[in-house]
């Protein structure tokens, strides 16, 4: 399968990578900023696609090599001319101290992508804001929350459990400020 790296979108690349892996019996979950790109129709564009998989990185590397991606360090892959790089984050898939329980299967023209649900995507971005004070991650959480249906009670429950009540309230206030 050939990939035109220069013209490809986040969604298409995620689908092509997922499909190639699935053909070899490997499941991989898309997490991080790439989920934000997909859920906001590229309002935010992530330069990297982060996947989580329980498969051995060596096995993943062999599949990615078939679609032109070369392993550049222990967990990341690049393709010449492609603006995105792919990283396989260490398993298990988790958001804060909790495992990922629900997975969204998104059907696209290029294949099926397994990714975080919009609610988990918000929590995933908020985790970066909570733990590293990353404002960019907060902005991304707000973007997703504004255009997707989010279970705020779940985000609140998780935020309390993580110990970030104050920052959760800031997130809610910021949505209001920027709200349509």
């Amino acid at each position, binding site marked *: 399968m050939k990939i035109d790296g220069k013209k490809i979108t986040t969604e298409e690349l995620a689908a092509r990578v997922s499909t190639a892996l699935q053909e070899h019996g490997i499941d991989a979950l898309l997490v991080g900023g790439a989920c934000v790109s997909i859920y906001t129709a590229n309002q935010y564009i992530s330069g990297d696609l982060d996947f989580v998989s329980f498969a051995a990185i060596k096995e993943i590397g062999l599949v990615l090599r078939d679609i032109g991606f070369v392993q550049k360090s222990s967990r990341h892959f690049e393709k010449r001319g492609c603006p995105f790089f792919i990283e396989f984050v*260490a398993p298990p898939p988790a958001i804060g*101290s*909790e495992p990922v329980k629900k997975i969204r299967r998104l059907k696209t023209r290029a294949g099926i992508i397994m990714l975080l649900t919009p609610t988990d995507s918000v929590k995933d971005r908020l985790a970066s804001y909570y733990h590293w004070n990353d404002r960019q991650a907060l902005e991304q959480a707000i973007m997703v929350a504004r255009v997707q249906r989010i279970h705020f009670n779940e985000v609140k429950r998780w935020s309390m459990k993580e110990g970030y009540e104050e920052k959760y309230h800031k997130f809610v206030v910021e949505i209001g400020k920027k709200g349509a």
Partner: protein
Amino acid sequence: MLEGLFGNSTVEKVFFALYAYGEGYPLGMAKLFGVPVNSIQQQLKRLENSGIVSSRLLGKIRLYTFNPRYPFLKELTSLIEKAYEFLPEQEKNAYYRVRTRPRRAGKPR
């Protein structure tokens, strides 16, 4: 103490240092323990690839901390905390109670 579990003594030292000081960099840890810097770097790289520690550049120094997003962090630090209690006082004083509070530049040591 946890060497058998973690596979080697360097990673145990790295864990105790991160637990005691909250953060650390390879050369600092190497000097602290009197071990080669590449052995510390190797372990930190391995831990970072596993998502257990995370790092950021501070000037030219790569500063490591426990990864707050590691799902088993609470359990791991509980184990390290427990093991730390069993360290001899002499070892705690030598390695894990080194002054960290600020000292004005130019002041004699």
